[in-house]
């Protein structure tokens, strides 16, 4: 049995198929990328898995348990954490307070939550920012705070929604190192949505591609970057014909 199993997941917004019969599995310890053009349904898929949206049909099994019908907070309590694309972190809380909100999922004691939050901030090398308000920080640091907050809840699986969006190449290097650290050293299975191809292709063990709500390809980064369906989805039919990609 796989760590995360998604069977025939369909999400229908009043006639719009945001996710159409998507199936995939994730093994513990993997680092999987989820890519696709804008509007492909990537974030919707995350919202469905994490329980924020009730799904139209299908089944989600996490660590051997059917979590299809669970509410978002129940899914989170089972060790499935996520970050958000648009949302960064609570602006009028300091960095450490933000991370503590995550830590409070596993403990009632403030001292323990604080200790754990400090540990995580040190681990991600942002402990010098502890007492700043989140909205005083540059975007790259804010993204790390969101990650730290999610890690505070001690997840087994972490879904990252576009953590590298809006960052410069230097910062992308930094966040990539952090994701590697979370995955390799903290032992958290990671699935990430990303538009920055250099990051996804370099970091992922495996890539899943969505287009118009359907899964169109899945495989190792090398194969995916040569897959004509993927190139078609990103660059259009004509590009494929003119350049004869994949033939």
């Amino acid at each position, binding site marked *: 049995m796989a760590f995360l199993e998604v069977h025939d997941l369909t999400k229908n917004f009043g006639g719009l198929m945001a996710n159409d019969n998507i199936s995939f599995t994730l093994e513990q310890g993997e680092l999987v990328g989820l890519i696709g053009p804008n509007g492909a349904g990537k974030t919707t898929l995350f919202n469905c898995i994490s329980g924020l949206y009730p799904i139209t049909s299908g089944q989600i099994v996490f660590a051997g348990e059917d979590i299809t019908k669970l509410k978002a*907070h129940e899914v*989170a309590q089972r060790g499935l954490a996520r970050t958000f694309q648009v*949302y960064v972190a609570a*602006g009028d809380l300091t960095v450490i307070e933000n991370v503590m*909100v*995550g830590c409070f999922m596993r403990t009632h*004691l*403030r001292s323990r939550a604080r200790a754990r939050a400090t540990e995580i901030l040190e681990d991600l090398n942002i402990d010098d920012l502890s007492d700043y308000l989140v909205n005083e920080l540059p975007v790259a640091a804010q993204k790390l705070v969101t990650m730290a907050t999610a890690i505070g809840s001690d997840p087994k699986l972490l879904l990252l929604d576009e953590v590298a969006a809006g960052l410069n190449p230097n910062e992308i290097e930094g966040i990539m190192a952090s994701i590697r650290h979370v995955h390799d050293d903290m032992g958290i299975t990671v699935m990430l949505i990303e538009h920055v191809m250099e990051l996804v292709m370099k970091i992922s063990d495996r890539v899943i591609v969505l287009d118009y709500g359907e899964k169109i390809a899945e495989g190792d980064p090398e194969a995916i970057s040569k897959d004509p369906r993927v190139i078609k989805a990103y660059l259009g039919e004509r590009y494929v014909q003119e350049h004869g990609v994949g033939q």
Partner: protein
Amino acid sequence: MEAIKNALDFSDFPRLDLIIAGSVGIAFIIFPLFPHSSFAMSTMIQFLMFSLYGMGWNTIGGYGGQVDLGKAQYVGIGAYTTAVMLILWDVPFWVSMPIGMFFSVIWSFIIGYPLFRLKGHYFAIATIATSLVLKDIFEVWDFVGAARGLEISPIKYHPPDFLRLIFKEDVYYFYVILGFFFMGILYMNWFRKSRLGFQLRSIKDNEDVARSLGINVHWAKVKTYAIATAFVSMVGSFHACYIKSIEPEDTMSLDISILIALMAMLGGAGSLWGPIIGAGILIPLKSYLKEWLGAQAGLVGIDLILYALIIMVISAFEPRGVWGIVEKIRRRKRS
């Protein structure tokens, strides 16, 4: 153990704040020793009562961001429970107060559970509605004296009666409510650092994010609403013994609900000192306006105009109130 330590630990405030807070606290304690008018004394008691109402409101309204405009219904439940039990069965205040809190909390669950499915303005409007409905029920309910209300006659007792909280001199009431006031501050100091306090601040910011951090948003709100309610009901019980004459119009009216929320917002919703600062500004202002302008010039309702002005000023300039301004200045200085 850790809860007590957290309640007593104010070390995250700048030293200046603690010196000011400490001096003000001592000033309150010794205030009755100095010559004062009975008007000043009753204003002080009102101020302490409304600070406590504000602290209660601040849990759900300030930290949780759920604007509640129906707190007066819990003032009423607390006040009526204590008054009815004292008049009919001679039950002491210290017994009827927790019973009143119990009733209030039950009622808060009954209305809070469905009401928290609503968001923002809709929630605020719904709380007004439930409060007004309860007031209307009390106005026609003969058992609690209907619109005439209830009268606690002090002649039957032998003041100072510490069990029933029947005193002749206001100074006794002052020290009782001052005790509640200090306890309230300690409780709030614990609350803001507690797990629930952090969860609420996360909910206020973004409910979906809160959910994905394992927080049961609906239940956290219902729980906090019950805490806010217990605070308000406790002071409502005190109100019954202090005023001795209660009727639906002056314990459960919309004015009181609005004043409670307004004070906390003016002082700074979501901060420890906010409700106290707000009450410290508004209650004396209200008393003096009523006493001087209202009575002498016949300008009844001038306080309502003032509330409206304050709402506009807060929402236009600094939604986080007086305390928000203080924090803004501090941050600017630091950077």
